[in-house]
């Protein structure tokens, strides 16, 4: 197992190095996510409503961005047959899965931080000191789950012939529990609609359960799904 972790770290470092050098997520996905937040404001057209639904909009924007980031994450692999090369080299699929999930998770966390700040600025959401810990735990647990399913279904949908359109169809239904759990927990952390911090912690249980289920399930299933 130790070698799977070593592979995971190497794959994650490779993905993050590619991002640092190409800046695709920073230059393209981040602005996309922020423009989605602005578009929500156009559609809803009410300060009171925006303040009430801010946590949900943040996580919705995260989900939309997730689809784009996952596509990017596997476009890199497919371009020169890199994923096939890794598989042919006998690299354990579980290691690739964990590594790509870790890199995806780091990128998502940065994205979420920016989206949260934009919610504070655009939607008048308020971050309370009492909710900081809950907010951080929510972000980490939700992101772990999203990174796992993103990598899992992204791997399946990667490759040629119009598979890009398949990804949202597979990914978004699976992500529904994360959207529900993370939104409720974030509402409690921010005190949206009078929610208290204590109400948020049970949702962390759901998010953690989800992350563990798809972390384990993904490690086992990834090999079969990307095998071409």
């Amino acid at each position, binding site marked *: 197992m130790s070698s799977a972790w070593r592979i995971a770290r190497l794959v994650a470092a490779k993905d993050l190095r590619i991002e640092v050098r190409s800046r695709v997520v920073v230059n393209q996905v981040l602005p996309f996510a922020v423009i989605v937040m602005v578009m929500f404001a156009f559609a809803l057209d009410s300060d009171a409503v925006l303040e009430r639904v801010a946590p949900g909009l943040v996580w919705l924007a995260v989900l939309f961005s997730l689809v784009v980031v996952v596509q990017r994450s596997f476009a890199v692999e497919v371009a020169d047959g890199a994923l096939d090369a890794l598989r042919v080299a006998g690299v354990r699929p579980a290691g690739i899965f964990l590594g790509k999930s870790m890199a995806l998770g780091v990128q998502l966390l940065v994205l979420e931080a920016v989206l949260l700040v934009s919610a504070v600025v655009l939607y008048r959401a308020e971050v309370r000191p009492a909710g900081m810990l809950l907010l951080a735990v929510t972000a980490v647990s939700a992101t772990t789950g999203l990174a796992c399913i993103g990598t899992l279904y992204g791997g399946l949908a990667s490759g040629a012939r119009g598979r890009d359109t398949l990804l949202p169809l597979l990914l978004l*239904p699976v992500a529904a529990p994360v959207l529900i759990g993370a939104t409720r927990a974030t509402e409690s952390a921010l005190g949206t609609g009078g929610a208290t911090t204590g109400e948020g912690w049970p949702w962390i249980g759901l998010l953690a359960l989800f992350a563990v289920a798809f972390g384990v399930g993904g490690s086992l299933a990834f090999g079969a799904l990307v095998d071409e």
Partner: protein
Amino acid sequence: MTIAAPASQTTSSRSALRRPTSTRFSRGLGTAVLAGLVTLVVLGLAVSPDDRIQGDAVRNLYIHVPSAWLAYLAFIVTAVSSAAYLFRRTRSLAWDRIAGASAEVGVLFMAITLVTGSLWGRITWGTYWVWDSRLTTTAFLLVTYIGYLAVRGLGGSHHQRARRSAVLALLAVLEVPLVHFSVRWWRPLHQGQSVRNGELSDLMLFTLFTGLVTFTLLYVWLVLHRQRVLTMDDMVADRGLDAALAERQREGGQ
């Protein structure tokens, strides 16, 4: 149903491919299903009484509940046959085709369940949709298996398709309870029993029972035929490849 062989086939292999998907058993079963459906229509529309509260709307029950039952049965069969395919000792493409055929039938009847349910809801509740956990999970099931069918269509060799879709079907088993659980927690005040509050007359229960039995037989009949057609699809794909290879070899020989 018969299918035509590729044009380049010889007469003998063409006749081998020109097989009907029905057997004596499935023809008998099909006749039983037809008789059952006719009985259900007569019982459901004419013989069974109106409901005291719901009036004629209760007749929707005789399609809605059997469809839902059939769809759940279909998805369970898909999961079990996917597991059977992945299990080394029972690995066979037959399991994969049963899983695929069952999922197709399941998607169709899950859609029928949702349509009949929302029409009934419009009449009885005054709204097509409520965010009830059962309704929402059902909608997610439908979308999940539409995705599953899309993945089956991705191409590759038969065993690639089988492995990929079997794993996906098992992931759906992981996903569906999580979705159901989170939706239930999200809207704790969901409706009680959607229809049946124990006020069905004997005749109504009998009609419902007829519906359940008939739809179960219908499911078996549909999956039987569908998986035979899928087998032929695979055979045509294999023979098409063989024919193309032979043609290239002939070209190379000239």
